[in-house]
């Protein structure tokens, strides 16, 4: 089969979801955000809920998520996405509402909003992309920055004694009765992407069944912030991030694993 035949409509076996716009992603080449966006939007399309879904974008690298996700979107102040999502969901309990947040947004400045939205069991989906660094502002220390990890605000490495330990907020919120499903995934290999997509699907099914809050963490790389080549950053992530932030389900059907 020639290339010209492959791109004929009748031979297509995969197309980009209509739920992603044609805008060029503003993310660095090699970053996991684009894949995380794409699988989230594919799930929304496959569930047939595009017309009933409202997304909440954070502040951080994914502040412009609304440029790429082709659905109704609201951009929240830094850390406040779970409160904004609460406001939308409470007035439209039958619509699908999700937040898409990074580690600084969700675990630092928005810690209180995250904790209480989870504790109220808001019937929303939270997608939490954790790359252990503030990407957009140029690579500063995040709550999830690993012990000894160098960033522009921990230039000699994160020092636990003065800067605290990397925050496992996902394990923390999993303890709350209002939270129904908690999982930690990644998007660095084809297999991981398929698993992460299944997890996001499950999270939206939890919302559909009105069982409470569903929380999907995606451990991702930040090759620019970590100052590595994309492949090397993924290898570093597997070697250093995964031992501290192990992948897999943490809470399923309201029960801790």
């Amino acid at each position, binding site marked *: 089969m020639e290339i010209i035949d492959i791109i004929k409509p009748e031979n297509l076996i995969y197309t980009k979801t209509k739920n992603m716009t044609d805008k060029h992603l503003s993310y660095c080449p090699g970053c996991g955000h684009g894949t995380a966006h794409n699988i989230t939007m594919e799930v929304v399309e496959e569930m047939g809920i*595009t*017309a*009933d*879904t*409202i997304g*909440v*974008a954070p502040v951080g690298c994914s*502040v*412009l998520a*609304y440029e790429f996700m*082709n*659905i*109704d*979107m*609201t*951009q*929240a*102040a830094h850390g*406040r996405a779970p*409160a*904004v*999502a*609460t*406001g*939308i*969901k*409470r*007035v*439209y309990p039958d*619509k699908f509402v999700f937040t898409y947040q990074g580690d600084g947004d969700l675990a630092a400045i928005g810690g*209180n*909003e995250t*904790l*209480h939205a989870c504790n109220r069991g808001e019937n929303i989906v939270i997608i939490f992309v954790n790359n252990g660094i503030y990407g957009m502002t140029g690579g500063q220390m995040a709550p999830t920055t690993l012990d000894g990890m160098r960033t522009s605000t921990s230039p000699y490495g994160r020092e636990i004694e003065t800067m605290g330990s990397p925050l496992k907020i996902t394990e923390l919120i999993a303890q709350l009765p209002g939270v129904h499903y908690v999982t930690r995934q990644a998007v660095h290999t084809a297999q991981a992407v398929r698993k992460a997509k299944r997890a996001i699907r499950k999270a939206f099914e939890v919302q559909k069944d009105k069982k409470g809050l569903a929380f999907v963490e995606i451990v991702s790389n930040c090759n620019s912030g970590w100052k590595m080549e994309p492949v090397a950053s993924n290898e570093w992530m597997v070697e250093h991030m995964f031992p501290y932030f192990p992948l897999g389900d943490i809470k399923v059907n309201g029960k801790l694993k």
Partner: protein
Amino acid sequence: MADIKLMKGNEALAEAAIRAGCDAYFGYPITPQSEVIEYLMMERPEDRTGMIVLQAESEIAAIHMVYGAAGAGKKAMTSSSSPGISLKEEGISYLAGSELPAVIVNVVRGGPGLGTIQPSQADYFQSTKGGGHGDYRLYVLAPASVQEMVDFVDIAFEVAFKYRNPVMILADGIIGQMMEKVVFPEQKPRLTDEEIEEKYGDWVTNGKRNNKERNIITSLDLDPYKQEAHNHKLQEKYRLMQEDELMYEMIDCEDADYILVAYGSSARISQKAMQLAREKGYKVGIFRLITLFPFPSKELNELAGKVKGFLAVEMSAGQMIEDLKLAIEGKAKAEHYGRYGGVVHSPEEVLEALENQIIKG
């Protein structure tokens, strides 16, 4: 038959919100306005109209819940008192930047800091000059009675949606806590999605229904020229508010030599002071501000050509006096009088200040 009740200002405001067809209230307790959320929780408006009431984890969360609900096209409101309003300023700036309609109630107490729980009018600057970051204005209504706590809720929502701009009802601890006779309007129905779209246009983020174009709510534009154009649009709204939405009341100003300029509780106190002054033979009138933004600069300027002096009466160290002085362009004498930090001036004190600072001064 009219629905007449004897009620506290805060409770009357809460009942008025239900009757205005408000869709959602998000709040956090703080003295002296906690009765608003207490009344709503007791009243269960969800059973009456479907209105949602939620106690948030903080004032910050409450205002951002309002942001979410307002962005979804619903009539959303929150209330607080001074320190809580400071926390809400982040969200208020975002509401203005994203052009979202919402009603914010401030039952002002003395400050700065934790201050006191007694009445004050020291949040005038914060309310009328923006409050949060950026070039924006709130439409600010100042009720002077429990009746106006009721009447202004509906006006606040109408203006908020007409201009897609947050509106503040700036009360104070006296108006919030005192009981007065009050007449309630009929229950307004909550608007359906279709009615919202028909009345206010299709800008809301409540899903891409019927293959409509998607909507985005954001205050961000990284292109400074686009952000400047957006700011021009906001300024044009404020200009239109000045033209079309200004409210004030002139009491016995026709023959007056001296004018007490006041709003809220200070306007009520000034009414007694005016009566005492007239008994002593001074021709005194009251210019009561009802909207604090827009401010009646042109009207006060015209009046300045006809009178001998103004006394700005406010429970602050002198905030509204600055707008008054700008308005009258030095055409007449203008001074400030007011007790503050939670202390309320008496009519006698106001009269004494009028005599010493303006009439004999």
